[in-house]
């Protein structure tokens, strides 16, 4: 397997309490991510599953350097991500994009959809004309199932599923290599969530994308993951091929999570 992403000894701690209402207790630190090492192969979907507070979102954000780890290394396409500065960092960043859980919060409400989707082009390809950006945006929107009539509308005019499609179009417009998706279908209705999951699978195939897919839901992850890491208290308790983890779990905690999934009666 050829690793596109490799993390070694990742660690992140936060100060416990703190803030205006804290009562002393400075110095006590809480370990969100505890000495985590893993590799993600080119073209796979590496899913990180865990309950709230397990540290999965902190990992996602460190992979894109949205937050800085306290310790550890991240190599992306052979480059040392944490050591990259200015131009080198910008060129790495355009190859890795994020899709967020809440399509309502992640789109600028004052920007038109066309501007939102084309904005990364304006930053990373300053040579492109406004017309060129718009044309590229139209093609990408079409690919996620939205017509050119959406370009001049605002995010609030769209349903949750449509907003998530807009977020995906924006993430893909620079043709990145890696997408980190943090709970991308959790806020969506069941019928729409299924549409978005299938769209992500199609796009992965078409654009040769690698996904890091963060979710609390084993049934959702089962639809898309190549490999699954089960996370609790900042560590991976189990990591393996999706089929193995789902159907032959090794760790008691994985078994507990699987047993808690509410099952539908058999037809």
């Amino acid at each position: 397997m050829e690793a596109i992403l490799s993390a070694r000894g990742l660690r992140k701690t936060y100060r416990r309490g703190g803030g205006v209402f804290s009562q002393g207790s400075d110095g006590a630190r809480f370990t969100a991510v505890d000495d985590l090492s893993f590799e993600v192969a080119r073209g796979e979907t590496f899913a990180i599953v865990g309950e709230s507070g397990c540290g999965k979102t902190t990992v996602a954000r460190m992979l894109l350097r949205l937050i800085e780890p306290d310790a550890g290394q991240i190599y992306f396409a052979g480059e040392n991500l944490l050591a990259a500065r200015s131009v080198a960092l910008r060129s790495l960043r355009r190859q890795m994009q994020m899709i967020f859980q809440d399509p309502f919060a992640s789109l600028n409400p004052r920007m038109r959809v066309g501007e939102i989707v084309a904005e990364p082009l304006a930053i990373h390809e300053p040579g492109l004309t406004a017309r060129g950006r718009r044309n590229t945006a139209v093609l990408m929107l079409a690919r996620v199932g939205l017509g050119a009539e959406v370009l001049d509308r605002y995010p609030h005019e769209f349903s949750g599923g449509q907003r998530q499609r807009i977020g995906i179009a924006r993430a893909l417009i620079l043709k990145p290599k890696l997408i980190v998706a943090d709970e991308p279908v959790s806020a969506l209705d069941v019928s729409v969530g299924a549409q978005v999951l299938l769209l992500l699978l199609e796009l992965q195939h078409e654009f040769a994308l690698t996904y890091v897919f963060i979710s609390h839901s084993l049934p959702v992850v089962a639809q898309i993951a190549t490999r699954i890491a089960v996370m609790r208290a900042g560590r991976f308790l189990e990591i393996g091929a999706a089929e193995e983890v789902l159907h032959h779990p090794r760790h008691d905690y994985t078994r507990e999570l699987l047993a808690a999934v509410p099952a539908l009666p058999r037809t």
Partner: protein
Amino acid sequence: MSDLLEAHGLSVELPTPAGWVRPVSEVSLRIAEGESLGLVGESGSGKTMLSLGLMGLLPPGARVSGEATLETGGSRRRLMALSESEWRAVRGGEIAMIFQEPMTSLNPVMRIGAQIEEAIRVHQPKLAASEVKRKAIDALQRAAVPEPAVRAQQFPHQLSGGLRQRAMIAMALAAGPRLLIADEPTTALDVTMQKQILALLDRLRRDLKLGLLFITHDLGVVAQVAERVAVMYAGRIIEEGSARDVLTKPKHPYTQGLLKASPTLKRGALTPIPGIVPQLTALPPGCAFEPRCEFRRSECTAAVPALRAAGENHQARCVLV
């Protein structure tokens, strides 16, 4: 089993800049004492507006038609004719509600015990203080809150998410209501915690012979808690029957579609429903699901189909049934 709640042809209309919309349209349902009805629907289906109507908590300006009757301990109340002061006796005393986010019901600056005591005192003002206190701790104990006397002295923020949910359940049940409306009570919880709360609600329903109206978008959850299931789409109940029949032999194409779109641990079985839920301001004529339906025919747009018998105690609002 006698019916605790019976709604007949209940509609709720709301004024919007684009004119009146009808989030709840001619809904009829019944819940017997000790029975659980799962109400399933996606966002915009009207399930939450229906529950607010049954609690007398509709937004100002709402227009209601149809009937809902609550029968408890020999008294029969027509809910839609109640005055606000009559509602105050029914809310909490006869019908209680719990929400997805416990902090919707809990006061952040009041100790848990004091909040539950307040809920009891509203309905039993003559009870001695010591008796009220004892009842509040009993309520926490019933909701399986460990060390109830200690927890009663704490504030909501000192409790974990799961304990807060239990405290909210304790408060909802403290004054002895007969019907509990639970609106997505486990949606924000982790699966392991969800499992515990579902088990708790099931036990309380059996022990206290509560009627339970459980609102959720999750078919897996409804399979765990409901004896009967009603599926809502664009304000109407489009299928109703025993949980087993509706979930294993769904007759309405929307119910069938929801089941196929629900992820399970098996890969590759996922089939989305095309399109999106229609806006209430622009409902299609006839069956509201027709534009998304793979089995649509010309007659589907002619009129809203009636609920038709699809088996014993099983009905679906579809011309194909």
